[in-house]
């Protein structure tokens, strides 16, 4: 419980400092606040989908259903954080560009990631047999994740975009106020802790469901 409370205090303090103490980014002005939530959500989406792929590979190697539980939980949470990143991004786009959706390369990319992992969950729900579901969805997850780095990191950098440079820009530098970078990093760490907590809970629920079905 101490770890949970530490996480609560960590994220709360990071929010207070980010919203009250950190300066605004000159171009973004008031919309800077959205980025303390938008970027960690996008980061966790990539971490979770990578985690799903890792456990899918482990399932294909070991044929242990515990890895399938991890893969499914991570894909579900990855999709959830991807939706959160899309919503916060759309709010930011409305304030900066005047419209919630502009088919910007980064928006188009995240749309494809959403489609890919919605299809993953649809695939899982369409197969009743446990082993077959685990095997097919593991193969799908591995193939789907191959597309993620291209969609998230490569495609948005290949075309001109309205989206501002990422934290580490094209010149490989961090052009931000140190206080903003500190708040970003604190939020990234906090969100990562939150994700792994949610992941462990989801996996435990999956095991309980299996136990209930077996009984």
């Amino acid at each position, binding site marked *: 419980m101490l770890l*949970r409370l530490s996480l*609560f205090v960590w*994220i*709360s303090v990071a*929010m*207070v400092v980010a*919203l*009250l103490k950190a300066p605004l980014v000159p171009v973004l002005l*008031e919309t800077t*606040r959205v980025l303390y*939530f938008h970027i960690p959500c996008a980061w966790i989406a990539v971490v979770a989908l990578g985690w799903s792929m890792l456990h899918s590979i482990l399932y294909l190697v070991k044929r242990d259903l515990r890895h399938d539980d991890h893969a499914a939980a991570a894909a579900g949470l990855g999709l959830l954080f991807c939706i959160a990143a899309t919503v916060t991004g759309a709010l930011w786009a409305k304030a900066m560009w005047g419209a919630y959706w502009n088919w910007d390369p980064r928006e188009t990319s995240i749309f494809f990631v959403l489609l890919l992992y919605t299809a993953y969950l649809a695939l899982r729900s369409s197969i009743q047999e446990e082993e077959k579901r685990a095997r097919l969805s593991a193969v799908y997850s591995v193939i789907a994740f191959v597309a993620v780095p291209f969609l998230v990191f490569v495609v948005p950098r290949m075309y001109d975009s309205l989206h501002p440079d990422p934290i580490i820009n094209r010149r490989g530098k961090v052009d931000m106020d140190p206080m903003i970078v500190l708040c970003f990093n604190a939020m990234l760490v906090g969100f990562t802790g939150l994700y792994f*907590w*949610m992941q462990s*809970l989801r996996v*435990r*629920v999956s095991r*309980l469901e299996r136990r209930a079905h077996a009984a």
Partner: protein
Amino acid sequence: MDRNWIVLGVSLLVWGLLFLWLVRVEKRVKELERK
């Protein structure tokens, strides 16, 4: 009122509710695991 305080209030409220919900889910999961 300063908008920063409004954004902070809403953010802390949402985070607090999410935290409490997760703690409750974890407690329930522990109970079911013990059975």
